[in-house]
């Protein structure tokens, strides 16, 4: 719905992709691991291979959790905007259909956090 205003009310979004110096934003959450209070936000080049997330990004961002070392990536499930998603690690983020400000999550079956309470 339009904003009810005294005159024409139209503005450029504050976070369009052109403002991120060639990067696009990607949000990543780890299901059942609420020790990380919220999904993370990252700026990535769109041509970065998806597999770099697993190799270079996730170990740093989620490394504090003891479950990280136990992940069997062959069983990990991915979701994009909550729907099942099958990324190809060799292809880039863009080739995997990921656009600016997309949100993805991964689930690692069998791993449910500290004391099994999804922490």
């Amino acid at each position, binding site marked *: 719905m*339009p904003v*009810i205003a005294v005159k024409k009310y139209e503005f450029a979004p504050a*976070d369009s992709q052109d403002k991120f*110096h060639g990067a696009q934003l990607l949000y990543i*959450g780890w299901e059942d691991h609420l020790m990380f209070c919220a999904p993370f936000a990252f700026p990535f080049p769109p041509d970065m291979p998806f597999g770099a997330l697993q190799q270079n990004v996730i170990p740093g961002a989620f490394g504090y959790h003891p479950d990280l070392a136990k992940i069997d990536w062959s069983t990990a499930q991915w979701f994009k905007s909550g729907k099942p998603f099958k990324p190809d690690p060799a292809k880039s983020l863009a080739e995997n259909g990921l*656009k600016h400000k997309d949100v993805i999550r991964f689930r690692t079956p069998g791993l449910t956090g500290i004391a099994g309470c999804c*922490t």
Partner: protein
Amino acid sequence: MDGRSGKKLGLKERYSLMTRGLGWDTTYQPMDKVFPYDKFEGIKIHDWDKWEDPFRMTMDAYWKYQAEKERKLYAIVDAFAQNNGHLGVTDARYINTLKLFLTGISPLEYMAHRGFAHVGRQMRGVGPRVACLMQSLDEIRHSQTQIHSMSTYNKHYNGFHDFLHMIERVWYLSVPRSFFDDAYTSGPFEYMIAIGFSFEYVLTNLLFVPFISGAAYNGDMGAMTFGFSAQSDEARHMTLGLECIKFMLEQDPANLPIVQKWIDKWAWRGIRVLTLVGMMMDYMLPKRVMSWKEAWEIYFEQNGGALFNDLARYGIKAPKCIAQATIDKEHISHQAWATFYQYGAAADFHTWSPTPSELDWLSQKYPNTFDKYYRPRYEYWAEQHKQGKRFYNTTLPQLCQVCQIPMLFTEPTDPTKLCYRESDYKNNKYHMCSDGCKEIFDNEPEKYIQAWLPVHQIYQGNCFPEGTDPTKPGFEPLPAVLKYYHLENGRDNLDFEGSEDQKNFAAWRQLTTTNL
């Protein structure tokens, strides 16, 4: 009229002359041009004189009352400062609640002052204009008295040094700030619902009672006194908020759906901001007043319920978001403190692990949720801290586009799943933390796409001190962002354990009780 007749005016006569009698209709400019903002929102007012002012206060009486309150307040504030009253608080952790108040709330009081001055100017009815003028003055007084009362802490403790700079920059302060910016940029009637009704009437008890009782419980006479000094003003504000809503609803039946939409929106906006208060009550006060859940039940479910029953005769329904908020009362304080604990490197106050007896208190106050979902998390962190591995999350979180809180809230149906909501607007994606925030976004997307989200602003390179080159090899963003915030790393932030505040408080207190 002869001003020197010596005859005293009756209250009613005096009120009428000193308020309604001061207004006039313009003749050489049309009223609609002089008051250009009080119609565009669609609220129809047929007779401004139907506005009832329950206090019948005039400006001369107002100055007299306020001056008396100021004299009392400043006598106590002076005594507190001269007597080193800060050393009498329960425990130096308490002082962090004041930092949160000074950085997060006092600037809002100032914005409320500006907002009511603006609204008072824009409403063509004299009754509400005078009431708004008084509230505008109250709000600047609150802002000032809070700053003065807390200035004594600035002489001794870290984190009080630059609250005005921080409110426009620091990540979590964008939460209260965006709330007020949202209200301030709406029309005058929406502002009255947002601040006058939702915030002042429905939610203010949840803000003031915990803070001020919290100050009293924890031996802070200074903060307690500014609270009491503001209390009679708050009573007037609540009445103004309620009068305003009744006035709108009585003037025209077409106003009802507009007002209802604003109530729904602003109840949820306010509830989200109060997450910070919940966290303060359950985690930051060494001596607790009551749990957040108990406060919510008394001040919202019981008092708010009675209010909405009263408004039902106008067709107003209790805000839709109550169902979600009722579920959330068992969770949000734990989720919020966990967030500040892990992002404690970027906060202007100290964070800490609850002590074992505090964990027991939480288990007892939250029998349905604490042991099951949160206690293991806090115990794990405390254990890691003991081993020298205090958790500091250094990756930036995703934020809600509307309330600007990190996306930390869980699904209403499952507290083990984070709540993700999104909307597409003009080829861009926007993320929200809840159905409430999503509905607000979807109603006015053009407003919220402009949000200054601190995390995105950092990634755009807008939150470093001038002259910073983020492309330099080895560039570390966090220290640069802290500099931009005017936060001194290792001094204003990090864990309370080992902080300068902790050491100083202990040393000074010892000086007051021993000879060594």
